[in-house]
């Protein structure tokens, strides 16, 4: 076929839709998993999972991804059985469903990497025992058909309605009839212009009182701008509750089947209402963006008899395109353009400043200055806008992590309760991607080494459920991600022993380490407290890698732990890496950029303020000893003699460590776009990259985290006084 780019586009859509599906599926499964433990899962959610697999199967077979369509076929049939009441969720079934998510991810990964739709390298690695053969698959729970034969809706409901119900909707109707629920038909008039909002409103009102079987559009309406819809509702509460729920809505309420007290009826018991998410109100309000989007839509659709109301009509198209998917590469490109614009802007500013010093040109210079200020503001807005687009909620990562946690806890047979907070905190997309693995590793450690066995926990008077709290929040320009467990804590003595054994530390040096420094030893290669390797987290391989990966993103990871109480890892990351405000400083006539978010304050300093402590220059800042690092010395061109008068001191602070950076001069503040130095300069570890400051000169951007790290490692003897730790 000659599909070329069209086919390619469809293919891309397929991959991205499949990815979306995996994300929503995993969210839904986690909800279902929770619901199964306490009662019945929301049928809507089960149906959504079914429909997801159904769609995926159709897509996979259409696009010729055979392993995926086979997998989706299995899952679709399974979910079909469940939603139609032929099977119920068992732990085994849920396990296999969770496994399938991993399979889909694997297949998509292979296609993505190889670009080969046939995904030839794929082989099904699922444990075959989880499906069908499992002792409790579907049978142990009570299937709804088992009790009594289903009520035949044909005798109770008009065939006009039955003929348009899908198999699933018919099934839900049967279930509700069997339970003796009353069936109502509510006729509600919707305005075509705002049908989306109105519908969400109605859904929100009805959710607490019953189950909507379907919506039946009626073609009887005379008004071309209105649409009458019959809502087929199984009422789980009293009629009074329905009236209350619909207060203010003009609805024509008709009873199709009255509530019955049949033997199997649960009329007076409260049916667990589906989780009442607070969503409806979110989508009610039209915003500027949406209105703008619909302006465009309007041009594409030739109106028919809607001229007098065109403006309102256009608003009704709101939901047609609310979001746009963008390749991150395109955003990077835009960001680069903004970076270039920034450089041009700086040049313009310089020229305008120079012009202002020439008397004859003053008017023109002022004009240029004014214009360039306006340009500055707009550019800043644009930059902010692009940064905002790059931001995604950490929930993207947390969803994946909670799935893995569930799987792991089953693997080690520990009960783990993962408590997530701050999932809506937003972080740059690239950071999220890079951060997943390190955080995963920390969680894995918490589960396999941190949390004790159930028996041990019981003996220690702890709840049998181990808790891992995953928290994200923003603090200034940083995102903090914390992983905290209530496990056994890290045994400092053991760590010390291992570190000495591995030759990472001399016994003498060990004696002078603070508690925090001892804990930090776990970030050294080969240091671990576990005697045996296990399947989950290996044997001490990893925490050093975790640290390296996080440092590569200009972040820091810190650990706190109390024996018997638990362990807490805190990762501090910049919100974005794309563009950062930086402080320009000069050192020995070279200009460097220091990321502003790593500088707590700047002071003037001279040699007289400096005291030597254990051979290291220090400065007393508000009663606390701050070790100093002379930047000229750091870059291997040390100048002799005391620190010259008028030098500047930057208090660099990252996580809990502080270091005074001594520079010659502060040149000002500027937003810089960091370009990497390229592979050949990988060894230059004190620099995060280079940036163009607009005067055609390159400046190096200092990697404060690395400088602090190296300073404290190479001055091992210098123990930072505890007072500095906040």
């Amino acid at each position, binding site marked *: 076929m000659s*599909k070329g780019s069209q086919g390619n586009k469809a293919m891309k859509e397929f991959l991205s839709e499949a990815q979306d599906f995996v994300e929503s599926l995993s969210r839904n499964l986690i909800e279902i998993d929770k619901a199964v433990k306490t009662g019945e899962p929301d049928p809507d959610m089960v149906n959504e999972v079914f429909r997801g697999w159904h769609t995926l199967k*159709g*897509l996979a077979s*259409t696009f010729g991804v055979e392993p995926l369509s086979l997998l989706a076929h299995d899952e679709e049939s399974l979910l079909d059985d469940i939603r139609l009441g032929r099977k119920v969720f068992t732990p085994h079934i849920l396990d296999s469903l969770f496994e399938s998510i991993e399979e889909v991810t694997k297949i998509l990964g292979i296609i993505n990497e190889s670009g080969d739709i046939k995904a030839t390298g794929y082989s099904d690695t699922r444990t075959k025992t989880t499906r069908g053969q499992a002792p409790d698959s579907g049978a142990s729970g009570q299937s709804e058909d088992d009790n009594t034969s289903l009520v035949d809706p044909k005798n109770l409901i008009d065939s006009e309605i039955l003929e*348009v*119900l899908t198999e699933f909707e018919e099934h839900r109707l049967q279930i509700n009839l069997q339970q003796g629920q009353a069936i109502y038909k509510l006729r509600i008039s919707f305005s075509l212009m705002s*049908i989306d909002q109105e519908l969400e409103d109605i859904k929100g009102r009805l959710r607490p009182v019953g189950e909507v079987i*379907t*919506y039946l559009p009626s073609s009887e309406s005379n008004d071309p701008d209105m649409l009458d819809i019959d809502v087929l509702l199984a009422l789980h509460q009293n009629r009074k509750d329905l009236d209350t729920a619909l207060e203010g809505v003009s609805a024509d309420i008709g009873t199709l089947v009255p509530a019955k007290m049949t033997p199997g009826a649960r009329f007076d018991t409260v049916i667990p209402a589906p989780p009442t998410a607070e969503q409806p109100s979110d989508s009610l309000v039209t915003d500027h963006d949406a209105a703008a989007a619909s302006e465009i839509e309007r041009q594409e659709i030739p109106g*028919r008899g809607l001229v007098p109301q065109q403006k309102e009509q256009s608003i009704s198209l709101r939901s047609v395109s609310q979001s746009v998917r963008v390749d991150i590469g395109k955003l990077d490109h835009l960001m680069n353009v903004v970076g270039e614009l920034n450089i041009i802007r700086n040049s313009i500013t310089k020229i305008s400043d120079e012009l202002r010093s020439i008397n004859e040109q003053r008017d023109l210079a002022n004009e240029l200055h004014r214009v360039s200020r306006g340009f500055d503001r707009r550019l800043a807005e644009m930059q902010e806008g692009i940064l905002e687009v790059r931001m995604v909620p950490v929930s993207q990562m947390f969803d994946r992590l909670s799935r893995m946690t569930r799987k792991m806890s089953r693997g080690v047979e520990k009960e783990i309760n993962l408590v997530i907070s701050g999932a809506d905190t937003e972080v740059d997309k690239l950071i999220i991607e890079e951060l997943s693995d390190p955080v995963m590793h920390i969680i894995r450690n918490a589960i396999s080494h941190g949390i004790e066995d159930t028996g041990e926990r019981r003996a220690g008077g702890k709840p049998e459920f181990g808790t891992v709290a995953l928290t994200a929040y923003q603090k200034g320009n940083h995102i903090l991600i914390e992983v905290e467990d209530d496990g056994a804590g890290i045994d400092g003595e053991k760590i010390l022993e291992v570190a000495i054994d591995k030759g990472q530390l001399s016994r003498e040096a060990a004696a002078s380490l603070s508690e925090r420094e001892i804990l930090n030893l776990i970030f050294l290669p080969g240091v671990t407290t576990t005697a045996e390797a296990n399947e989950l987290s290996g044997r001490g391989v990893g925490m050093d890698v975790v640290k390296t990966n996080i440092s590569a993103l200009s972040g820091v990871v810190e650990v706190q732990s109390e024996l018997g109480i638990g362990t807490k890892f805190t990762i501090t990351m910049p919100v974005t890496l794309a563009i950062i405000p930086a402080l320009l400083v000069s050192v020995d006539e070279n200009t460097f950029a220091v990321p502003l978010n790593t500088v707590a304050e700047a002071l003037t300093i001279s040699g007289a303020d400096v005291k030597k402590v254990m051979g290291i220059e220090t400065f007393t800042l508000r009663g606390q000893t701050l070790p100093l690092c002379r930047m000229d010395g750091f870059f291997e061109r040390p100048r002799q003699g005391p620190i010259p008068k008028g030098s500047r001191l930057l208090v660099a602070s990252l996580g809990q460590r502080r270091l005074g950076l001594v520079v010659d001069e502060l040149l000002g503040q500027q937003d810089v776009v960091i370009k990497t130095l390229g592979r050949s300069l990988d060894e230059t570890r004190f620099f995060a990259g280079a940036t163009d400051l607009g005067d055609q000169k390159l400046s190096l951007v200092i990697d404060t985290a690395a400088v602090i790290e190296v300073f404290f490692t190479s001055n091992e003897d210098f123990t930072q006084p505890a007072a500095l730790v906040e």
Partner: protein
Amino acid sequence: MTSRLLIVDDSRAMRAFVRGSLRGFVDCEIDEASSGFEALRLLPRTDYKMVITDINMPDINGLELIKFMRASERYRDVPIIIISTHSSKQDQEKALELGASAFLPKPFTPPEIVNVVTALIDEKGSES
């Protein structure tokens, strides 16, 4: 005026696939709706030459869409092609009973949908 065709499916990849398959073979503009409700909103605006719809969609399903169109004087004669999986025979039968013009089981190839669409357009052309 070029004629327009409406694709209703909650999968954007499926819509893109249908659109891509028809491009170059069928001379018409294509609109897309991601739900039954969206289709109901788009329908009054344009005289669609044809509607291609899935069955299993949230809220308003494909069957309801067929019934709605067949009951309306304006849309009564617009050909409707159902694209859906084989999995529910019952749904398929209902669709044809309600007046769907053709049923194309998923998965289908680009030539298959091109054939069904052009056949229906020709049929319609020879009628009038």
